[in-house]
């Protein structure tokens, strides 16, 4: 057993207490009201959440609208660049449910990863990157759905700065004018995992892979629920409303056993700068404070999380640790990948598991998925591409689930 000192019995006792916060007693004002006041004064445009939407409860007991349809997918550079099955799974789920969405080319990343890593930017530049993307979404009529946890956290923090500092607003508006774009802020900043969360019962209705024999640990992403904490989804039925409900609620809806571990609050060790140029810290933290603790306390079949950096860090850090005989070997998936897999998404055409480093084969075997057969199918795809018979995979190739009811 690990030497971590947080007493699990006490944790469980505290977890049994249900928290039902009263929004009237929220410690911070509702920023959305201030946004609407600014709109009424003609300072900016608030893009309304389109119908249909689902109302969920957030940390302070307030209500948040999560749109279901008409989505502008604000992609994540880390996901698209290094774990493309993450993005593919989100869009595959959209397509399976017939969602009207836009996968834009008029989008940059939030550039927040660089900002948190190197500080080679400034507040006004960061605000403008956000506002340019929001204006681009607004011009299309689709509503932004933020894929990256860091973009989500960064944008929430920037939105606060924009609302509270007139001088920053004025600078932003001046430069947006030059770009010919309006100053638009969405009514709600919505993370894709919130969309997955509100869709979880519909995903479960179409589940074709039985996951009841699977145990998972959840790593909640810091930039999802720690930065501007009041925007994250909380539910009294999940952890007694004491931790964010996203990811865990999905897994439970799919019949997966979610196992607790004492260092759930710890970050993954990503570090932004560290993951790129100082990975000794990242590896040490990810292995010693996360993966080994999960192994010792819960021995999960997989770890599930909902952010770019967390999947990257927890997955890629395990190879070097394995070479040192550390207690590792936990496959790491995003919630979108788990949801898609449950609905029968192809492990390679959709989940793109070949981009993951930690061995995912035992997980697929436990789920009864013949990964060798599906890998052979994917290898045929690759061969056809290399022979020049097809330019690449299309949604037509990837749409069909590997199993049907």
């Amino acid at each position, binding site marked *: 057993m690990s030497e971590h000192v947080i007493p699990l019995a006490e944790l469980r006792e505290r977890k049994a207490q249900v928290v039902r916060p009263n929004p009237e007693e929220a410690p911070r004002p509702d920023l959305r009201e201030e946004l609407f006041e600014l709109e009424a004064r003609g300072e900016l445009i608030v893009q309304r959440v389109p119908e249909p939407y689902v109302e969920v409860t957030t940390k302070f007991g307030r209500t948040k609208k999560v749109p279901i349809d008409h989505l502008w997918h604000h992609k994540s550079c880390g996901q698209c660049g290094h774990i493309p099955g993450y993005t593919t799974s989100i869009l595959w789920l959209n397509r399976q449910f017939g969602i009207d969405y836009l*996968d834009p080319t008029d989008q940059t990343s939030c550039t927040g990863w*660089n900002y948190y890593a190197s500080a080679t930017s400034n507040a006004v530049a960061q605000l403008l990157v956000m506002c340019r993307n929001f204006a681009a979404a607004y011009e299309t009529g689709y509503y932004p759905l933020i894929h990256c946890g860091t973009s989500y956290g960064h944008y929430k923090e920037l939105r606060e700065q924009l609302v509270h500092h007139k001088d*920053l607003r004025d600078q932003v508006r001046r430069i947006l004018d030059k770009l010919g774009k309006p100053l638009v802020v969405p009514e709600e900043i919505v993370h894709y995992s919130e969309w997955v969360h509100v869709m979880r019962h519909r995903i479960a209705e179409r589940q074709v892979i039985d996951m009841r024999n699977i145990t998972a640990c959840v790593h909640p992403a810091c930039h999802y629920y720690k930065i501007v904490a009041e925007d994250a989804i909380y539910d009294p039925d999940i952890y007694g409303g004491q931790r964010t409900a996203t990811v865990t609620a999905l897994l439970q809806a799919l019949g997966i056993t979610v196992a607790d571990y004492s260092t759930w609050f710890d970050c993954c060790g990503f570090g932004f700068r560290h993951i790129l140029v100082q990975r000794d810290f990242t590896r040490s933290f990810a292995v010693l404070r996360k993966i080994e603790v999960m192994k010792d306390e819960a021995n999960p079949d997989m770890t599930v999380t909902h952010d770019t950096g967390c999947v990257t860090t927890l997955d890629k850090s395990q190879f070097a640790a394995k070479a040192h005989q550390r207690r590792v070997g936990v496959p790491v998936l995003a919630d979108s990948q788990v949801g898609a897999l449950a609905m029968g998404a192809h492990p390679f055409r959709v989940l793109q598991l*070949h981009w993951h480093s930690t061995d995912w084969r035992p997980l697929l075997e436990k789920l009864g998925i013949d990964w060798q057969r599906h890998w052979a199918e994917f290898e045929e795809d690759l061969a056809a591409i290399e022979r020049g018979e097809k330019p*690449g995979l299309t949604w037509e190739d990837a749409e069909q689930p590997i199993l049907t009811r």
Partner: protein
Amino acid sequence: MSVATWSPTKASQRYADVAEETKRQLFEEVKSDPRYPDFLYGCYECGICVSACPSARFYDFSPRVIAQALAREDVDRFYEIVMEDIWNCAQCFSCVRCPRGNNPGGLVTLMREVAVRHGLEQAQQALQGYSRVIYKIMLKGNQVSPDMLQPDFFPDWGPWVREFSRNMTAWRKAIPVDTLRNVTDAAWRTDDKTLRELYTIWFETGNMEVIREVDEGLYELLVEIMEEELEAAS
């Protein structure tokens, strides 16, 4: 960790040769940032931020000391933090569970910005090897791209990186998402107009001057490419 044992090497002033005025000027620059009052409200010395901090576990680093030094306006300690500590922060913002509402991670961001703007040697050292990332983010609007996954840079990620590197082109074509398929030098396909708007943002906000402080050669290269793009479009 007690006060007595915490960082014995930091008990003495190690930057006595740096003028008080220089330290004060840097501190005032941090303090004058419009975000500063939102990030610092005082400190109970409860240590909750430290208990949540990943960097405190692996480095001689304390978000509590940062909040205290800034709240006390202790410019000597502030200067030591800028020179030795700020680049160890993981920017996870676990420290914002502070009962006073402090944001030590945010304070670190402000101090990093000032360190970069002044071209402090420690900032340049911390960002060694990082220039290729800056090149990518400024030009492509993406932090990372498939072609950055090279075995020489990520040997600790195992044989997977080598296999990926060999198969990158085919693997990228085998992604069904239209904006990702066959794109290797960026995370997704971005419109030229979008990138020109991004370049305008970098120029208009003084961001390029920040890059000049970090890496002058990189700055000149970026400016040349961006200006050429903007001029061609106009």
